[in-house]
């Protein structure tokens, strides 16, 4: 498929951002090889994925240059670690929201001076990228938004705040009650004021409506892609579907939307001509659980090289995060802020208690995507998801839906063990 290389000719820009160039070079090399091994080895990929290959090859290059140029024009960059941070509010202030990925181990020794070893890999990765000075998104951001979601993140942001002077922590409710909703609304109001102060831009109902329409369009594109993954035959791999979802967090919205629709047009043609990507029938798997941030491709790679295909993700980087549009019918600031609050309040992350809607959503996805089985993914030390895994498995068993619970981290030492479990699970489905 030709050589894949992550663009690395931006030394002066990276230097200006304060990156550690040697560590950064090493990271790009590993990332490039990983991407080539995992993504480019796939057969029969839709041509539309070429855009995403390009985005990945320029992941620290062109996209960063775009952000640096925006800053030079006076725009602000806001980094976020969670789908609860409303992109609508950021866009309405003429700023850009970028998801900060935390999908790989880095600088673990340095991280363990700040965090206990028994912390989830996602949180440790966020620290590692900061301590290692290898993330240009982090260094470009004018404001980094943390959130009080799980205990791990809550306490970790206290330390992260000592490493950067632009950390803003958003509080989130734990219960989906009237009071919980009021808290979310008031936190979104507080965030709106903070973004206005950061950017010097006053957010108006008109700019908020405009922002809502852009973010809704992005969601719409992702919904369209997801719907096409429901088809039989399968026309796009789970790895590719995941990548599109991952890229949605930091790519230029308009360009992303256009590229996804182009990909979808191609997939529709494939479905019409019954041109699937698989040469034989394979078990259809739904992944459910913790989000997989870039460049975390480990589990989908194992699943799809073991003879299955992933047809959907019940995850924040996936349908849980992209589901539901924001109602844009309102005309006043209050109505629009309420609409935004209502939309985000529906996300059924395991940090909420109780979280029964998530059980319903998983079963709904099994049906919609014609999944043969569910693989539940919990990061080691993630209490919310590893604890929810048990009632999820029980509920699925009662509904006669095969389920496999996996708990793992970002390391490669347990790949053999995971393959054995996953292959045994697929043998069960066969």
């Amino acid at each position: 498929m030709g050589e894949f290389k992550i663009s690395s000719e931006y030394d002066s820009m990276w230097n200006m951002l304060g990156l550690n160039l040697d560590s950064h070079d090493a990271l790009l090399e590993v990332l490039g090889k990983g991407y080539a091994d995992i993504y480019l080895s796939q057969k029969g990929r839709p041509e539309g994925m070429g855009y995403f290959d390009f985005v990945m090859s320029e992941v620290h290059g062109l996209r960063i240059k775009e952000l640096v140029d925006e800053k030079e024009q006076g725009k602000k960059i806001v980094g976020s670690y969670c789908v609860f941070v409303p992109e609508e509010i950021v866009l309405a202030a003429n700023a850009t929201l970028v998801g900060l990925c935390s999908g790989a181990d880095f600088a673990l020794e340095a991280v363990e001076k700040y965090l206990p070893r028994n912390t989830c890999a996602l949180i440790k990765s966020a620290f590692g990228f900061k301590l290692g000075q290898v993330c240009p998104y982090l260094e470009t951001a004018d404001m980094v938004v943390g959130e009080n979601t799980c205990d791990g993140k809550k306490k970790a942001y206290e330390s992260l705040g000592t490493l950067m002077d632009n950390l803003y922590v958003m509080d989130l409710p734990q219960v989906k009650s009237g009071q919980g909703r009021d808290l979310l609304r008031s936190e979104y109001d507080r965030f709106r004021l903070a973004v206005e102060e950061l950017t010097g831009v006053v957010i108006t109902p008109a700019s908020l409506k405009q922002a809502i329409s852009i973010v809704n369009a992005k969601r719409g594109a992702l919904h369209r892609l997801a719907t096409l993954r429901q088809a039989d035959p399968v026309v796009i791999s789970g790895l590719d579907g995941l990548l599109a979802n991952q890229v949605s967090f930091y790519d230029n919205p308009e360009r992303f939307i256009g590229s996804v629709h182009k990909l979808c047009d191609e997939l529709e043609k494939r479905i019409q001509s019954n041109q699937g990507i698989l040469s034989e029938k394979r078990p259809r798997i739904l992944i459910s659980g913790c989000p997989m941030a870039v460049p975390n491709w480990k589990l989908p790679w194992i699943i799809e090289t073991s003879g299955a295909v992933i047809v959907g993700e019940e995850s924040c980087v996936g349908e849980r995060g992209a589901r539901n549009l924001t109602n844009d019918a309102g005309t006043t600031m209050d109505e629009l802020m309420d609409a935004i609050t209502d939309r985000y309040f529906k996300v059924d992350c395991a940090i909420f208690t109780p979280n029964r809607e998530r059980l319903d959503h998983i079963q709904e996805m099994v049906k919609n995507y014609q999944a043969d089985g569910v693989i539940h993914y919990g990061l080691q030390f993630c209490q919310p998801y590893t604890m929810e895994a048990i009632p999820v498995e029980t509920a699925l068993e009662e509904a006669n839906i095969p389920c496999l619970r996996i708990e793992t981290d970002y390391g490669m030492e347990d790949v053999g063990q995971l393959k054995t479990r996953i292959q045994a699970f697929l043998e069960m489905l066969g």
Partner: protein
Amino acid sequence: MVVVDEQGKILDFCQSDTGFDPITGANRILAEVPHDQIMATGYGRGLFETAFDDAQTITEIKAHARGCISFFPGVTTILDIGGQDSKAIALNGRGRVKKFEMNDRCAAGTGKFLEIMARNLGFSIDEFGLAALGAENDLSINSMCTVFAESEVTSLIAKGADRKEIARGLHLSVVKRAAGMINRVSSLGPIVFSGGVANNPCIIELISQKLGREVLVPETPQMMGALGAALILAEK
């Protein structure tokens, strides 16, 4: 390694250490037995598949299930404790794997644990189970980790604890882990016990006592994985 004919009758079997060059070892064994097709299972199955063009593979979960069913048709619970891992497998009434749990991340509760502890106490692996059965009192070992358990045993020896009682305590540690795994996949019915550790009479006795369920052991239990793999291949 197990060889079966098309009807599933066992023609030959043998066992040897994997060592540090498993492919050479496998080649040596295979050279002794005429065969038409090979199915590999276990940790090395991927390696085997690369080295032998016509080999197929299957996970040890499905393989152990098939092997055990050939001795005990209708079995719904299998416990396999090998040298390096342990697993509990629940089957539906018709021989299909329904649910499974594995411990393959550490030596606790595996044959390796028993091997190391036997050596520490001066027993051969064959004597160890009988010695443990012969203990008159129970003794609890707190550490699950092989490394820490070793230290704990050293302390107990220094305090003059009875060797057989220590042995029994160590066997009980293994059984507790196995029982936990079994309970998570199945709560009723007899348990078919496979893997090398199923040769240990004390483990058999303690599992049966702890769970209040019958424990059935096939002949040459350590052969169940290879047998199952061969039978699955024969049935294709």
